[in-house]
């Protein structure tokens, strides 16, 4: 079971997309997994032949549990479909033989504080106990808590109350809890510092208008693609903003995978990543963005997208705010925020002009970088957006 987010502890296998004997190659979608953030497509990280499926649809297992046994191409048996991307892959010699892996109990799961009666009631009512908020002593989940949750669910027709084990669709209570946990951890552990600058978007918007005039409607570019591209290119020179704080140390990420905060219509927030943004041209990036937003809102994200963002960009311009000082999504170490483009009076070279201005902000982890580096990063974004034609190049 891959980790599909820093605070994911369990996943429920919804469906297999492969069967024993199937040949798979790296990147194939092999399974659908339900997490608090919705149903995610799990990709395989190895190529080979599916030997056996260990976990059956409907089973809920902790992160790290073996889902299936894959026979790698000519390398003997390999028992891991998809390790969490930020975890270094163990070498082939260290892996247990498949037969052992298949029978090993799942890794230690954190104990939920729930009374035996509450667990029984949850089973009867078809309530996922992970979604229930405990109000008993020390957060104990009591039968009354389960019944309250059941009442809420049956009162909300949007969420289908199904029998266990798999409730389809997003679980917003659980998502809110995951967000709460991640954000609380961030504010508790990460010493944030904040920087802001204003960027004149005139040149970028002019270039975009000219470029889009040449394109059919479906191929038009959005200015947010320029912003994300500029962030990616600026990150090349500030690697200390691109990576993870793990085990009391910073690990720079190999690729530049930009997590984009997408708010969901039902409420809640999801943070899937656009991969290798610095290596994509604007067309490819635009296509990836549209695809990602679409799939995020329909609940078809892939495992690798959910867990491996190396930095987050949040754009609250659509909501009409001018600036956003964000909370870093751990274990990432930086978050870039953009507000809306507004026309503002700007004095330059002794002249007053009306320019389209965007506020760019940076929230960064002071354990890893300092304001000096963070400032250079924001300035680099500004400089890149003044030469939009260069954003095309790699």
């Amino acid at each position, binding site marked *: 079971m891959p980790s599909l987010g820093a605070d994911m502890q369990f996943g429920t296998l919804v469906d297999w997309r492969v069967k024993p004997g199937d040949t798979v190659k790296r990147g194939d979608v092999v399974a659908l997994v339900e997490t608090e953030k919705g149903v995610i497509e799990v990709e395989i990280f190895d190529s080979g032949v599916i030997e056996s499926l260990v976990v059956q649809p409907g089973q809920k297992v902790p992160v790290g549990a073996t889902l299936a046994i894959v026979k790698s191409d000519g390398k003997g048996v390999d028992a891991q479909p998809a390790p969490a991307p930020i975890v270094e892959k163990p070498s082939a010699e260290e892996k247990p033989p498949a037969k052992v892996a298949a029978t090993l109990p799942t890794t230690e799961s954190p104990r939920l504080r729930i009374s035996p*009666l509450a667990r029984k009631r949850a089973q009867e009512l078809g309530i996922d106990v992970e979604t229930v908020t405990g109000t008993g002593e*020390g957060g104990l989940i009591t039968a009354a808590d389960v019944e309250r949750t059941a009442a809420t669910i049956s009162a909300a027709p949007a969420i289908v109350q199904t029998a266990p084990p798999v409730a389809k669709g997003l679980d917003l209570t659980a998502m809110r809890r995951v967000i709460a946990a991640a954000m609380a951890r961030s504010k508790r552990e990460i010493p944030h510092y904040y920087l802001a600058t204003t960027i004149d978007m005139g040149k970028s918007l002019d270039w975009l208008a000219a470029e889009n005039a040449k394109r059919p409607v479906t191929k038009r570019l959005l200015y947010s693609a320029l912003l994300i591209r500029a962030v990616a290119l600026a990150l090349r020179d500030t690697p200390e903003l691109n990576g993870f704080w793990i085990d009391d140390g910073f690990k720079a990420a190999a690729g530049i995978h930009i997590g984009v905060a997408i708010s969901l219509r039902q409420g809640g927030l999801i943070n899937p990543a656009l991969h290798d943004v610095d290596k994509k041209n604007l067309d490819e990036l635009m296509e990836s963005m549209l695809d990602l937003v679409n799939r995020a809102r329909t609940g078809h994200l892939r495992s690798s997208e959910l867990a491996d963002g190396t930095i987050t960009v949040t754009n609250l311009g659509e909501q009409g705010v001018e600036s956003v000082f964000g909370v870093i999504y751990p274990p990432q170490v930086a978050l870039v925020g953009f507000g809306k483009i507004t026309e503002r009076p700007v004095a330059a070279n002794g002249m007053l002009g009306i320019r389209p201005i965007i506020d760019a902000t940076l929230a960064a982890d002071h354990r890893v970088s300092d304001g000096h580096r963070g400032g250079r990063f924001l300035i680099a974004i500004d400089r890149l957006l003044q030469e939009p034609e260069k954003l095309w190049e790699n």
Partner: protein
Amino acid sequence: MRHGMSAEKIKTTYREAVRAAIRDAMLRDERVFLMGEDVGRYGGCFAVSKGLLDEFGPERIRDTPLSESAFVGAGIGAAMGGARPIVEIMTVNFSLLALDQIVNNAATILHMSGGQFNIPLVIRMTTGAGRQLAAQHSHSLEGWYAHIPGIKVLTPATLEDARGMLWTALEDPDPVLIFENGLLYNMEGELAVDAGAVDITHAAIRRSGKQISLITYGGTLFKTLQAAEEIARDGIDAEVVDLRTLRPLDTATIVESVSRTHRAVIIDEGWRSGSISAEIMARIMENAFYELDAPVARVCSVEVPMPYPKHLEDAAIPQVPAIVTAARRVVTGHE
């Protein structure tokens, strides 16, 4: 077994109810006799047997030397010989001198004799603290005796049980220990004029409730009932289970109650470790684990030798505020 009781009531005390029970047994069955320290001329250390010597004479109301092992042993012999002895040990504290007779003989002779000899012996004794009698005279060891197979352990708390358990115990073919909590002797109340024998195998629900089972016996029953009334004012509806008999425990009634309320607090004047309260918790866990909505809690005596000063003694044994606090915490998750 409980008789249809008359509506007509008399005012009485726990002490008088026990005396009435002894007198009734003496009148019903001439094999019954009472034996113990100061039960005759002095009328009993707690005045339970006052007047019985005059009525029944020294053959049947027998004063003994201060020799618990000897007179309990004599009681066992008398029971084997066909008598129906009521042996009074002044308090549970002194019963320790007779442990060998109780545990090694009374409880085992039926087995050791291959079923030849029942021991239809009743031993009464006072138990409990709360009267400033200090560390050597305040034990609550009934839970200890409940550990022993071969004997029955009764803990009458109400006037009906003080009046009614003795005869049923005498009819039992095997040894029965009756523990009378010393704080109860002066308790006044009303008792049906025709009150008589009661069953000794079932626990009783003394107060019905839906949210928590307060399980207790003996001297703490009335503190528990009072606590139940107090939490009722906060809207907590407590059930009070009076165990009545500690051996054999009425597991079914306990489990039924907890299965209705899903929460429990055990109130036991015994020390916590290895106590009857621990046994009750274990049975709840064994039989009603999936009915529990909160961990079972206990209010027991503090594990110290019983202090003599009043305020310290009060602090050492279960009191109403502690029961209220424990029950509230189990039901609401906070105090």
